[in-house]
């Protein structure tokens, strides 16, 4: 509601939002401060320096890990979006009674805790796992496929599986409020199914895509256990490196600097993305 009553709402919501922003920012600001410090054995020297950022920029390892984190996150976002769209559509538009049951079902694998889930994947993908046994029983291979487990493939399968529900939930909510009338109008105007998707469904569900994408992105980028336990020897992630720096090496400043580098890149990406979106057909199409 605009006008007067809205004003009141604003005054009510403002403090909560402000407190929340502060609360979200506080840990980030602590990290930012630390990122300019230096560690000397267990003492942290508080002379501000850019040394940590210089170290990151100069380290092929960290640069590579950061790039890999973003790459993985984007890949999983893309995969979950592709799978998520039909699923979310189905739940929103085809299921009538059992919606929350289906959503719950989608989420239950999550609540058993990530370790159990990871073990289940090992049972499935392992050298003596269900898939390999099936393949060998079918005579499709004679040797178990070692590459199934402990590989980037395994990692990405598990990541997709883990975070797909979040994409589905985001898209589901968007579909719930997508009025069929718009799709009818598009069909009426002669748009074939693919065009209806591109020109109507996609832009009108973009909040769900953005929300789902953000959640998946953030969680994939922050997940270190899955790559560690399923990704094999190359399962290191930037987050586990940061964890090492915090936990093992006690180099909080460098860890903070890495965290902030990722943050900055993320912000840049979103800024660029927002600009691009405003310019392209995702939100508006010019003739």
């Amino acid at each position, binding site marked *: 509601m605009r006008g007067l009553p809205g004003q009141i709402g604003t005054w009510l919501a403002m403090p909560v939002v402000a407190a929340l922003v502060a609360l979200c920012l506080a840990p980030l600001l602590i990290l930012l401060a630390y990122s300019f410090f230096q*560690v000397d*054995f*267990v*003492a942290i020297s508080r002379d501000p320096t850019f040394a940590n950022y210089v170290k990151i920029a100069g*380290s*092929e*390892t960290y640069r*590579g*890990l950061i790039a890999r984190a973003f790459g993985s996150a984007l890949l999983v976002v893309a995969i979950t979006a592709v799978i998520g769209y039909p699923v979310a559509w189905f739940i929103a538009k085809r299921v009538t009674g059992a919606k929350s049951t289906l959503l719950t079902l989608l989420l239950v694998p999550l609540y058993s805790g990530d370790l159990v889930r990871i*073990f289940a994947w*090992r049972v499935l993908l*392992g*050298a*003596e*796992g269900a898939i390999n046994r099936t393949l060998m029983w079918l005579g499709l291979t004679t040797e178990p496929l*070692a590459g199934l*487990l*402990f590989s980037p493939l395994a990692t990405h399968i598990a990541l997709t599986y883990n975070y797909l529900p979040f994409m589905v939930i985001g898209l589901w909510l968007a579909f719930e409020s997508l009025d069929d009338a718009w799709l009818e109008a598009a069909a009426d105007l002669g748009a074939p199914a693919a065009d209806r998707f591109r020109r109507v469904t996609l832009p009108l569900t973009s909040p769900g895509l953005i929300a789902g994408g953000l959640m998946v992105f953030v969680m994939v980028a922050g997940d270190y256990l899955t790559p*560690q*336990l399923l*990704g*094999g*020897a*190359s*399962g*290191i992630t930037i987050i586990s*490196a940061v964890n*090492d*720096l*915090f*936990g*093992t*090496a*006690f*180099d909080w400043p460098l860890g903070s600097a890495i965290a902030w580098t990722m943050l900055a890149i993320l912000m840049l990406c979103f800024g660029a993305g927002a600009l691009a979106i405003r310019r392209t057909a995702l939100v508006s199409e010019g003739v």
Partner: protein
Amino acid sequence: ATDILWMTWENLAKDDYLAPFFAANDVALTKTFIGTDDEQFAKLRAGGASSVDLITPGLDKVEFYTASDLLQPIDFDKVPNAALLYDTFKKTPLGKVDGETYGIPFYWGINPIVYRADLMDEEPDWSVFFEGDKYNGKLAMRDYALEGIMIAAMYLGIPESEMFDLDDAQLAEVKKVLMIQKSKLRTYWNSIGDLTNLFATGEVVCAFSWVPPYYDLRAKGIDMGMAKPKEGVIGWCDTIAVPKGVEGERLDATFKLVDYLLGPDYGKMLAVGGPYAQSTSAARDMLSAEEQEKIFISDLSIMDSFVWKKNPPRYNEWVALWNEVKAS
């Protein structure tokens, strides 16, 4: 009852190990478990010191705590069983600052190579991680920079005296062989339960390990082997330490517990149940030869052949190197 809180490994605070202590003392114990040494330090360092009465740091890590001024010296008057410490632990400079002991050795053991004897032809040594390709993709290494680099150094023949103070050239050499190692690994392991699992499912046939998988899986009928590599065996020792700020009744109760942990009742149960060796000789004579053998205390001189973990001065660079290898 006096409440005290012990931050420790899960396998050290089993109720039956401690039952005699509670029967004799009006003390209530709360336990909080740790997953890695470093996590324990981070936890204390981040502000948990004053709420914990007793912690269980690795001997090589005590330096971190003392440098951060987190500990108080052990009052040996209140820990009579400390007199029974094995010589190696009495003499060690680790855990001490200016002659005061801050972390008192508590229990110890080795981190050997554990392997599936049914799937390997010969007893491996460290070279299995660096040479040949018979076990490519079937090996595992702990994801831990300190031990990883120690093993590479041992494989390269770097003497123990230089091992913790590697120069740049040595580090470069280490990195080179670690890269070779990585190409042979199925994965790096993080928790001992995870590794046990990998052995059991046949994903991994040989790994740098702790001892529990060896015993656990043998007990479950798998033909496991435990190798003590000729290039050197990594020895470790955990201490118990009392954070600064613990005082009064709680301090008294804490030291009573410390004394119990170094005494015969606990030692016997740990040796049988662990199986781990206590740092004192309190329970040694109560154990059978076989039990003694299991925990390496039948011939005490073996302790001197172990390469005991120390904290390298350039630890941060070690961690960075380790990450570089993993990320390559």
